[in-house]
């Protein structure tokens, strides 16, 4: 296994040679006993992908791809005290790691003879991809004026604006580097390149004494003036992790946007990636698996990947465009490059092909076999933390995405998370976010969105559900592994021996997984969730971690019940009295035992009283005023009794 099996040559142009790795500093580490090579600057995940390991294992009977949005947590083989995310953990030479995942572990034999491209996990248990730090209560962290979540263009602009306003700022970035995801989106007229823009912001932040930048710091819960962070200390040897609660007067959420997964059979097979994910793997780590590839998209920025890769050695077979009539400057560029494009075409299914390749079925003609498929279902603001903070959202049918609405005290959105997708829009929304938090009137957001006539808005992409699909269909590319709900299948006689097996949930309302924003969008796209309810469902189904658990507010009933509970009022007439019964002391009569006048009576409507309780050896009862002869019915027995007092 070589560290560059799936890497582009170091000489690759257009910034796709791997900006974060040092190719002259090779490293080796082990994971579940298996030796993985890499380069200094790799994460555990990037080293695995570069070495050709692109499969987590199996889920729902089908291989499932290993990707940044769904990778198992790891720990140290000999000191399993720190759970680490493999996508954020820098790979270190000589370290031995172990995978943390529920479900059956691969045995020794399997570990020794694992096929080359899989981690060999069996992911059929709900919550197989555990994130153990989500269950840890946070230690108290620093208190600051402003916490900015997300180190992209908008987050950095907000941090600088906060510092200029005299605030102490903590900038939290989940990935190993600040800079965000604007690289794929290119430039508009008169703009610097994203890299130039980011470099300028970074140097200004470094020069500021008021800004503390924490990378490898993922926020997973948010409450009133509080954020909970899983933070890695990458300066430590080995890397350690902790969960910290940062308190702040103001919070800016600048977590960007993510790319939706088109809803079609086989959409999470190994070898499939999103356009942004594919770009960033190439830009950061020089990773590009295989030679031939296909792009299926319903969003414009994905086309830019095709032009960037031109001349890299990767051969683009064709571009499938999910929209019937899409216009974009990127589409025109691709035409100029001579790339074949098929408008109004959505793959019907993807199946594993021979030699680890992918077979992409099309509505017309023979399936196309490629090494890699890039699937892009358009971009969606990441509103997860917004929903966690209590924010609301609403489906925009024109733009086919969830958009934030309303306000949350002390919390504002900025950048793509707020729905601004131009770089200028992101920059100015970062500044505007701080103005709004401080109650200042500012110039507002300058978001030069190109008219929809020239840049057709993104759409979702989905194919019809098929009962005989060879590979499962997922609603999102995240670690919840949410399958497309399916109608119940008729029972087969073989289930007597092998059990009912794992089938997709039938309805979203009972799915024992949180529904990500991507899954909500997919649910709207395929008609599972009405558009008008998408925002409410998104807020209901976010994986909330309560930060300030209040003491139980449930009404605790008093220690002693009232002599006669209200639910017995008027049951035995207005003059019913509380009495003490005399009866065979061998019987301890239970509360609720009915009292009749007649030994043969059983109908509770003919009861003349009821036993309330036995206290201090005395049987208290509520009895109609007219009661003379008494028979208590308890546990099927008729027990004679009389009034003692």
């Amino acid at each position, binding site marked *: 296994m070589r560290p560059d099996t799936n890497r582009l040559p170091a000489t690759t142009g257009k910034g796709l040679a791997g900006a974060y790795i040092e190719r002259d500093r090779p490293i080796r580490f082990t994971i579940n006993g298996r030796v993985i090579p890499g380069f200094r600057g790799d994460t555990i995940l990037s080293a695995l992908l570069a070495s050709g390991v692109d499969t987590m294992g199996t889920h729902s009977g089908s291989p499932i791809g290993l990707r940044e949005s769904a990778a198992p947590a790891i720990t140290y083989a000999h000191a399993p005290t720190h759970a680490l995310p493999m996508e954020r953990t820098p790979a270190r030479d000589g370290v031995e790691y172990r995978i943390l995942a529920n479900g059956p572990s691969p045995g020794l034999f399997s570990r020794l003879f694992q096929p080359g491209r899989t981690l060999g996990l069996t992911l059929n248990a*709900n919550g197989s991809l555990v994130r153990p730090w989500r269950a840890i209560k946070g230690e108290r962290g620093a208190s600051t004026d402003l916490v900015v979540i997300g180190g992209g263009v908008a987050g950095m602009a907000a941090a600088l604006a906060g510092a200029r306003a005299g605030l102490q700022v903590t900038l939290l970035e989940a990935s190993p580097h600040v800079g965000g995801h604007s690289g794929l989106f290119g430039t508009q007229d008169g703009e610097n390149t994203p890299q130039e823009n980011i470099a300028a912001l970074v140097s200004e932040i470094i020069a500021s004494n008021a800004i503390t930048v924490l990378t490898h710091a993922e926020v997973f819960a948010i409450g009133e003036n509080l954020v909970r962070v899983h933070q890695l200390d990458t300066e430590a040897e080995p890397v350690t992790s902790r969960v910290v609660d940062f308190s702040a007067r103001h919070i800016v959420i600048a977590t960007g946007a993510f790319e939706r997964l088109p809803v079609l059979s086989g959409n999470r097979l190994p070898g499939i990636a999103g356009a942004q994910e594919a770009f960033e793997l190439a830009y950061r780590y020089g990773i590009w698996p295989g030679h031939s590839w296909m792009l299926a998209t319903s969003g414009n920025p994905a086309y830019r990947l095709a032009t960037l890769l031109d001349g890299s050695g990767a051969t683009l077979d064709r571009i499938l465009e999910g929209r019937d009539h899409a216009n974009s400057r990127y589409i025109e560029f691709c035409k100029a490059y001579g790339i074949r494009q098929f408008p109004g075409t959505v793959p019907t299914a993807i199946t594993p092909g021979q030699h680890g390749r992918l077979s992409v079925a099309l509505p017309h003609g023979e399936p196309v076999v490629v090494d890699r498929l890039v699937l892009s279902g358009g971009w969606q603001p990441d509103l997860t933390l917004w929903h966690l903070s209590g924010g609301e959202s609403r489906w925009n049918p024109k733009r086919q995405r969830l958009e934030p609405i309303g306000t949350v005290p002390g919390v504002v959105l900025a950048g793509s998370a707020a729905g601004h997708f131009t770089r200028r829009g992101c920059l100015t929304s970062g500044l505007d976010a701080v103005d709004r938090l401080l109650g200042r009137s500012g110039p507002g957001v300058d978001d030069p969105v190109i008219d929809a006539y020239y840049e057709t808005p993104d759409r979702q992409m989905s194919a019809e559900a098929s009962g005989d699909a060879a590979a499962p269909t997922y609603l999102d590319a995240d670690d919840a592994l949410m399958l497309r709900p399916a109608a119940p299948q008729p029972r087969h006689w073989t289930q007597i021996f092998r059990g009912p097996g794992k089938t997709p949930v039938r309805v979203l309302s*009972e799915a024992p997984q949180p529904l990500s924003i991507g899954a909500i969008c997919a649910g709207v796209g395929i008609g599972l969730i009405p558009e008008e309810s998408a925002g409410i469902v998104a807020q209901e189904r976010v994986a909330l971690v309560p930060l300030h658990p209040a*003491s139980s507010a449930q*009404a605790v*009933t008093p220690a002693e019940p009232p002599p006669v*509970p209200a639910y017995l009022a008027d049951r035995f007439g*207005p003059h019913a009295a509380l009495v003490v019964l005399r009866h065979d002391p061998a019987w301890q009569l239970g509360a609720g035992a009915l009292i009749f006048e007649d030994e043969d009576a059983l109908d509770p409507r003919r009861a003349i009283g009821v036993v309330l309780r036995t206290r201090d050896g005395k049987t208290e009862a509520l009895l109609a005023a007219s009661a003379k002869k008494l028979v208590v019915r308890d546990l099927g027995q008729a027990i004679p009794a009389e009034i003692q007092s």
Partner: protein
Amino acid sequence: MSETQVDFAVFGSSPLSGVIAGLLASQHGRKVVTVGSALARYRLPRAIDLSVAPITRPETWALLAATVPEASKLIAKIGGRGALRRVDPIFFADGPIGTEALGHFSHMASAYGILVEPVPPSKIGEGRKALRIGDALTINRPAFEPTLEAWLTREGVKRLSDAAIFFGEAGSVEIGAGENLVAARHAVLVDDTTILNHLPGWQWPSQLLRRQQASILTASSQHLAGPIMLQLDSGTVLVQHEEGGMAAMGLGTLGAFSTAIAELTAESGQLQQVGQVGFEALASSDGAPLLGPVVPEGVQLLTGLGPTGIFLAPVLARWLAGEASAEEGAWCDARRADRGNSGASVAEFTSGFEERAA
């Protein structure tokens, strides 16, 4: 704008509202529309339907015993085998008040032929009294809802949006439906959300209280002792889902309820919430249903019925249509929304309220 005249507009999204609308149309020959959206397939559950509840009044037990077979037959006819499920729920109590109420429930249920057996502490926890109730019926709302919609369509009951509602005199209502206007002689408000959103303030019953409730879906790998569990002290309901995970519904704000559920289910560490919603719900101050109008010419209410509501649907539909038997009519009239403090008490055990003396 054209106007359509109907007899009843039944407001609500629950199975109870749908079944009442369908029965008024199919059994009683009324022209009916329903107002609200069908939500069970994508929204978190906020309540359950169960043929037993901690009821302590014998007349309610008698009515339920007479109606459950009729209601369950109807539900099975509408929804098929998947809609109705037989379960053995567990009712349990920790405090003395809940424990006493459990005793009253136990004797009453046994008297009406329901199998009730104690659950040993090893299964349910020390210091806790628990009963397993045999052969109760519950409705699988996500499975039932689409079939209910189809049945309503077959019976000529249209579902309208509640975007444009205008309450008129004598309990009537007008509903805007696009270019059309539907005028109903009687508005019937069934679900809590519907009542909270639409009941005019001057028609609010004095016994109707607003309470904070929450519903949480967890990814807990623990299996409950029963498929449905009800803690009488707090009113918390736990439902084990076939797909794995558990739904919990109960009183309190979301944060407080989350803490309570973690304690109740003895979850170590953080509860793995995969869905949650806090909302305002309604309860009557005496635990008994509130039926009919509050003022002589007001809108009709059907609230406070608890989990057994849908199993009383045939009775409620007959009562609304003026075709109830004498016994059914007496039960409903005793629980009228305008009863105030007059007449004999019909109070039932109420979870989560500090228990009052008679």
